[in-house]
């Protein structure tokens, strides 16, 4: 499982990586590019080596906290058109409480901790870095 990709995210492969006969609940979160404010796409970039290390840390934290859960995630980089997924998180667990909790934990930590940046691209050719003081 590669956690950073420049291709469209294949959720089926993520599901296959974590589901199993003992895990009856699976929670998936998909973050997709929104069409807010005339955005047509977002260009995602990363400090790849640090992002990968941090993803490994995050997944380890989730596994420590919910030992019966299996979790994985994939973040897409590059130019992602509106409507396509930039991130997919999948958590499978024996019961749904753990699956929801692990999935939610991971998306919150991803947003706080991954060295990834986004530049919104608009139809008029303008571009804006997200989350930057201007």
């Amino acid at each position: 499982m590669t956690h950073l990709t420049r291709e469209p995210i294949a959720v089926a492969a993520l599901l296959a990586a974590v589901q199993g006969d003992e895990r009856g609940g699976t929670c998936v979160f998909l973050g997709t590019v929104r069409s807010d404010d005339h955005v047509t796409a977002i260009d995602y970039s990363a400090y790849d080596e640090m992002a990968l290390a941090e993803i490994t840390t995050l997944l380890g934290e989730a596994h420590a906290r919910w030992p019966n859960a299996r979790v994985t995630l994939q973040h897409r980089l590059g130019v992602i058109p509106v409507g396509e997924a930039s991130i997919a998180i999948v958590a499978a667990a024996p019961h749904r409480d753990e699956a929801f909790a692990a999935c939610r934990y991971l998306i919150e930590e991803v947003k706080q901790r991954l060295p990834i940046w986004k530049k919104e691209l608009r139809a008029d050719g303008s571009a804006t870095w997200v989350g930057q003081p201007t």
Partner: protein
Amino acid sequence: MARVTVRFFARYAELTGCESAAVSIASDAATVADVLARVRESVPGAQQLPARPLAAINRHQVRLDARVQDGDELALLPPLAGG
């Protein structure tokens, strides 16, 4: 003397027109803030970096008073926006 590789990402790479720069610091006890001061002098556009950017040494986030050592990779990180 410490030789440090400074890496710029996203908007900071745009401001400096640079992805990576080698910086040498004479002090044995240099901090991230010292390297940052040197970067502002030596890299065109780096004056526009914020006063206190996020920084990581060898892929771990650190404070600006963290020590740098010879061979370190110091990354200057715009506000994180993953997801």
